[in-house]
């Protein structure tokens, strides 16, 4: 029998209060308790980046984060990221460049890419992009169009 812990935080700007078991990951909480399914479960062990979210503005793997640790924090998922200028540009650039095939990895890439643009602005070059997406795996595209899309979105940040 596990005790549920009550936590409060904001997701994409809206305040939430939920009760979760202490073992639960933030990824499971987002998908199963809150119902935001844009954040994907790929590997569950920090290797693939499909579960990337922003916590207080930093990108992290939500599968490695304990849900209880979200207490008092500001969470942004792909659903919220695309409402911000950088995220919206990344989304459009992915469509333009054809950087989406099966699409499973896309939410994680969009969140990480938006974070990279917010951190580096228009100085974000392809080399920095490649280093910055080392934690995101894509089994379909071969990455070329993903890097092109992020480069294009970063250039618009000028």
């Amino acid at each position: 029998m596990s005790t549920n812990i009550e936590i409060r935080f904001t997701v994409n700007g809206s305040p939430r209060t939920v009760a979760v078991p202490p073992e639960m990951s933030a990824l499971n909480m987002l998908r199963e308790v809150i119902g935001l399914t844009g954040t994907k479960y790929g590997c569950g062990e920090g290797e693939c980046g499909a579960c990337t979210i922003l916590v207080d503005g930093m990108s992290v793997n939500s599968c490695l984060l304990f849900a209880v640790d979200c207490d008092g924090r500001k969470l942004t998922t792909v659903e919220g990221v695309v409402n911000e200028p950088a995220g919206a540009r990344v989304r459009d650039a992915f469509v333009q460049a054809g950087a989406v095939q099966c699409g499973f990895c896309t939410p994680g890439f969009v969140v990480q890419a938006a974070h990279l643009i917010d951190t580096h602005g228009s100085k974000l070059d392809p080399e920095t992009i490649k280093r910055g997406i080392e934690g995101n795996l894509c089994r379909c595209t071969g990455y070329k169009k993903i890097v092109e899309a992020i480069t294009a979105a970063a250039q618009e940040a000028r």
Partner: protein
Amino acid sequence: MTVEHYYAPKHLDEALEVLRAGNATILAGGTDVMPQSESGKTPLRKTLVNIRRIAELTGIRLAKNEVRIGALTTISEMMANDLIRKHFPILAESGDHFASEQIRNAGTLGGNVCNASPAGDTLVPMLALDAVVELAAKPNGSVETHTTPLGSFLVGPGKTRRAQGELLVAIRIPVPPAGQVQRFFKFGTRPALDISAIAIGLAAVKTKGVLSHVRLAYGAVAPAIMRGSKTEAVLEGKRLTPELIEQAAQAAHDEVKPISDVRASDWYRRELMHNIVKRMLIDVHEH
């Protein structure tokens, strides 16, 4: 066992009080705790203590002749910090090869030390830089702290000398002496999200071609990160020459005790040790 109690104390004092009762799992960034508990390798204990709200465990400060790095410092924060970049460039560099940005943003230095992986990336430079760990406990109603050299704190894979009620509060590294050179090398098969096949950290004072205060640290070639004391002895106080460099490389090859695993064989790791120690020393010699 499922978790029965969860605490997220804001003060060190409270955390130590909870830890004193025992049977607790300490949670920092969770990048080791989560996969290890999910897979059943290290199940969570009855009490889960989330230390991430404790302000006393954060921050990087210069105090007297040492830099004190709070246990909760993330790998990303460490890499961006001016004191670290200035005094301990090889520590900052070890972050460069560490997992991925998402993991660097979550994983902490205290977690990297306490997880005590034989391949822990930050441990190699910290050992070469004479780091000590600061531990706190509250055995009889008041907070007591003591320090231990990192080298004796790390015992084996996942094993440290941390006593049950103790919390690692900080890592302290002396400001390097004048003329110190530092080198770090991590060998993996790909640049990201890869665990070291071997890693080597080197710190030494170089005066007119002679090395002194030589410190070598080796990762992933023994049950815990180890000092290369035999190689250090070959180099200490001597002028660097091609012959001496070859002798040191041979000593490094001979003194490690690697295992064969999916990443590399024992033989291959020893060859790497020889060749990379040689390459690093040639680089020190020439610059």
